[in-house]
């Protein structure tokens, strides 16, 4: 084939250009440590990476929710356990009161019951992050308190039965509160607060607690123990969910790495090869381009 001088120099420039352009591409990939810098680098890869990023963001959101809920439930559990201790003490005192010799101390017992009652009411109004933990979804006021003349305990808010729902997985929504309505029941005189108030009044009047009064308190104690157990289970469920989310995150991270991160060793090897090829092209050019027939005439 007839080869002209222009062809030789043109070809040299073309190959040098190609060489340099692949070097440049490798350089930007190595510097950014990403295979996919724009959609055209790998459209399917980019789609996978974005979907994975979406999953990771959702998981982060769920984990925050779980953390918040765990703190909330922990406060609830701690409060319920303190309540249970208080009620347990009251029940012990009931057996003491049954002993006829302790009849003269009824007034003192009355004071102790009053103190236990006030303690319970205070605990029922525990707050966490601006929310009354037993208030359901109504946070306008403490759920339970004495009425104006201290003659009864009333429910101050319209309803304590609301459910606080939290999403901890894509398709999992769980209730994280213990509603006041569930725990204390309807405040109708046979509830724990008013029962204790009745017992205190009787004691102050020199009368012992009736069997029905004692039964109310013991029933509440049992119910409280069950609620503590149920709340404990819910805590476990939350922590399990968090562990699962953590391991899912690891898998997703791994997939993203696989799709998007470059193999640094491989890229550097390629870069070196290209640079070597570039050097060789330059050397070859210097030998060929300069010669013609005129040098020998």
């Amino acid at each position, binding site marked *: 084939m007839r080869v002209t*001088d222009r*062809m030789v120099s043109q070809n040299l420039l073309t190959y040098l250009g190609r060489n340099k352009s692949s070097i440049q591409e490798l350089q930007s990939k190595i510097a950014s440590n990403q295979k996919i810098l724009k959609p055209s680098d790998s459209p399917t890869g980019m789609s996978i990476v974005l979907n994975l990023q979406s999953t990771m963001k959702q998981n982060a959101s769920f984990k925050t929710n779980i953390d918040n809920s765990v703190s909330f439930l922990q406060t609830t559990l701690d409060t319920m356990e303190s309540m249970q201790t208080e009620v347990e003490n009251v029940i012990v005192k009931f057996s003491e009161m049954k002993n006829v010799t302790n009849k003269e101390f009824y007034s003192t017992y009355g004071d102790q019951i009053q103190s236990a009652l006030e303690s319970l009411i205070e605990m029922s109004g525990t707050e966490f992050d601006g*929310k009354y933990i037993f208030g359901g979804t109504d946070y306008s006021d403490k759920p339970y308190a004495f009425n104006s003349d201290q003659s009864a305990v009333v429910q101050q808010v319209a*309803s304590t039965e*609301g459910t606080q*729902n939290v999403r901890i997985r894509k398709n999992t929504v769980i209730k994280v509160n213990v509603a006041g309505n569930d725990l204390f029941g309807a405040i109708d005189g046979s509830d724990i607060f008013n029962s204790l108030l009745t017992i205190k009044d009787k004691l102050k009047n020199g009368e012992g607690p009736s069997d029905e009064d004692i039964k109310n308190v013991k029933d509440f104690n049992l119910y409280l123990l069950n609620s503590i157990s149920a709340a404990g289970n819910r805590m476990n469920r939350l922590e399990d969910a968090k562990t699962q989310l953590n391991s899912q995150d690891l898998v997703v991270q791994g997939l993203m790495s696989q799709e998007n991160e470059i193999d640094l060793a491989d890229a550097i090897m390629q870069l070196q090869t290209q640079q070597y090829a570039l050097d060789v092209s330059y050397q070859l050019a210097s030998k060929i381009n300069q010669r*013609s027939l005129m040098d020998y005439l």
Partner: protein
Amino acid sequence: MAISRIFDISNRSMQAYQKAIDITANNITNASNPNYSRRRLTLASEKTQTQNGIQWGMGVTLGTIQRVRDNFVDNEYRKANQNFAKADKKSWIYDRVEQLFNETSGSGLSDNINQFFASWNELSTNPSSIPLRNNVINSAQILSSKIEDIYGGVDTIAKDVITEYELKVGELNNKLSQIQDYNAKISNAYRTGKTAADLEDSRDVLVDELSTLVNMNVHYDKFNSANISIGGVMAVDSSTALVFESQYKDGKISLVVPDKNLKTTIKQGELGALTEVYNNEISGYKENLDFIFKELVSEVNNVHSTGSTLENPPQTGINFFDEFVDGKLKLNSLIENDPRLIAASSDGSEGNSDIALQIASLADSQTIDGYTFNQKYINMLTEIGNNSQAAKTSVDSNEILKEQLDNQRSSYSGVSIDEEMSNLILYQKSYDASAKLVKMANDMLDTLINMV
């Protein structure tokens, strides 16, 4: 007489070789001129004379000075050039579009959409918290400004495409009028029996440049005028050159000749790329985004309006978004001023977060053709990526083809210094030999004369 014939022959041969050296010199000095096609002198034998039954050769004569050019390879080159220019221009436009949707930095539109729904999810744990409500408003505002940026960017790209189109149409008209000029001159030369190699070289350069712009067909008539048709319209011959204009109608651009009411279909070259991308794709980006975000607004509002605000007494029936129009995602201005108006609760109590949960779960609801909002956006991005990748591949393969054809052209029409140098030596020696012949004939004549 035989000796005078020698003078005659030598004379003519010296002239011939002088001319040959002239042409070789022209070739050598133009060796690095990329637009030059080498000239080749054909030397032919002069017609023989018959005298006394003997045939006498009459020496060498100048044949034609050929301009060495292969029209077939030229045509192939121009076709490859059209394809290459189109792919290159498309690639340029797609590069800009990809930069607009910059997703890999972690603050792209996909991320903003995710963050918007995540903020509702976080609100659900503590729906009465004002900071969390402000977060929701904040992430909606970030989403809104990102969308506005993208629409603005698409508009800028569209404007730039139109500007570029008009610029190229100007170039097109310019070249056409120059080609027509050359056509006229070359036709005249051929009509009077002359050649016009330099003019043809210059014209070929223009025609090559024209092939970068549009799809065209070149036809050489008998007086070597290059008659070019563009997109189905005869654009230039030896007497006329059409003036093209860009026409913008129904959101599509096209190339027309307004004086003669002619329309063209431009499929290749830079104008072809600009036309295709503008007409078929740029409007599509906005349409797709419109579709996604109008659905988003409608779905969020549907759920939000069933919820109750944090006020006392709580209100219901409030929309979270005002509307989505012209690329602006407008939040309800009342909510922007008072975060308590976000209706997170389903029953009016402040701790109830059912509405917030429902809105957060819209992130996974497959409301658009079976895809979620984010997935639909990612699908659109994947399509852009595919188009861009296809354009890049096309650029690479067409570039290789174009270079091969260019090489072929160069090989045929280019100047090889080695060849010219060896020709030079040949002609020089021939010239020397002819000069020697004259001297010899002179000597012979002298001898004859001195005999007397």
